[in-house]
């Protein structure tokens, strides 16, 4: 049995609520994308997805069940012949709600609800997760190497060999970075890091902010750069990465940079 909806009805009475939801569903299947309030969008989502499940079944009985809600035959036809084939592969999650800025008159939170009709690619999420996990483990290993190297800064050749064995791309940066290490104060995260000055500003030549709480670094390109309080500053993004910090915004932003 479906969980009963909490809170007051939309509109004021059960009949009014049924009408509102039916009309919203009709509009959604007609236009693919509608703008409504967030509360209505959230109530519409399970309702509309259930109708799509009927449409995917596609037989006469399913069509009659849908016809009890959506009274417009043209819209029902569109749902069964155009929308349902697009959803054939998709195991649920047929709609997407995106919040948009509040309505001007009454400051009601608004949202766009749309049918997801682009082709379904099932493996995407798990593959991304796995990639992120491998990248994280490589970085952690690098960070361990880096701390060892700081103790014995006299042997840069040995360090390059180790890093090269792990990732070929990170190797040149670390070799460049190693000789500069003795001139500035160490920020606690390897040779190319520095603690912020007393007023919180950056030491000269250091442009990348590091957030020790989240272990993320922010270059000047980052959308979060201005709002980040730097606990540690880095000379380059590579130095931050070598110290175990990760790029903000998850894997998608990572791909843009490389």
């Amino acid at each position, binding site marked *: 049995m479906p969980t009963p909806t909490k809170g007051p009805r939309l509109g004021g009475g059960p009949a009014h609520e049924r009408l509102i939801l039916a009309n919203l569903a009709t509009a959604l299947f007609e236009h693919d994308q509608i703008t409504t309030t967030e509360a209505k969008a959230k109530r519409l989502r399970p309702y509309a997805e259930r109708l799509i499940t009927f449409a995917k079944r596609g037989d006469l009985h399913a069509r009659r069940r849908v016809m009890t809600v959506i009274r417009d035959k043209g819209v029902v036809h569109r749902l069964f012949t155009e929308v349902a084939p697009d959803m054939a592969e998709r195991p649920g999650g047929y709609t997407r709600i995106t*919040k948009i*800025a509040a309505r001007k008159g009454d400051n009601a939170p608004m949202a766009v609800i749309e049918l997801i009709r682009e082709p379904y690619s099932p493996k995407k999420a798990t593959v991304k997760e796995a990639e992120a996990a491998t990248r994280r483990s490589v970085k952690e290993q690098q960070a361990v190497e880096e701390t060892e190297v700081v103790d014995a800064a006299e042997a840069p050749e040995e360090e390059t060999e180790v890093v090269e064995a792990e990732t070929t791309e990170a190797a040149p940066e670390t070799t460049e970075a190693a000789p500069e290490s003795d001139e500035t104060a160490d920020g606690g995260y390897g040779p190319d890091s520095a603690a912020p000055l007393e007023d919180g500003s950056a030491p000269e030549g250091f442009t990348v902010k590091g957030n020790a709480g989240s272990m993320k670094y922010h270059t000047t390109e980052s*959308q979060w750069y201005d709002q980040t309080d730097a606990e540690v500053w880095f000379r380059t993004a590579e130095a931050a990465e070598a110290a175990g910090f990760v790029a903000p915004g998850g894997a998608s932003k990572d791909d843009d940079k490389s």
Partner: protein
Amino acid sequence: MAVPKRKMSRSNTRSRRANWKASATTLTACPQCKAPKQPHIACPSCGTYAGRHYGTAERTEYQG
């Protein structure tokens, strides 16, 4: 019908109202256009969210 027994003093009225405070909205920079926007909400200046564009999300200063 219940009615107030005493007139409410200006002091009491004002000390009650003094506690109505507004709080600042959390803002973040749009990854697309760098304009300030609320997190988890499509950008009101360029209308993008997670790389998708929503025309209805765009707002000017005068329109709601």
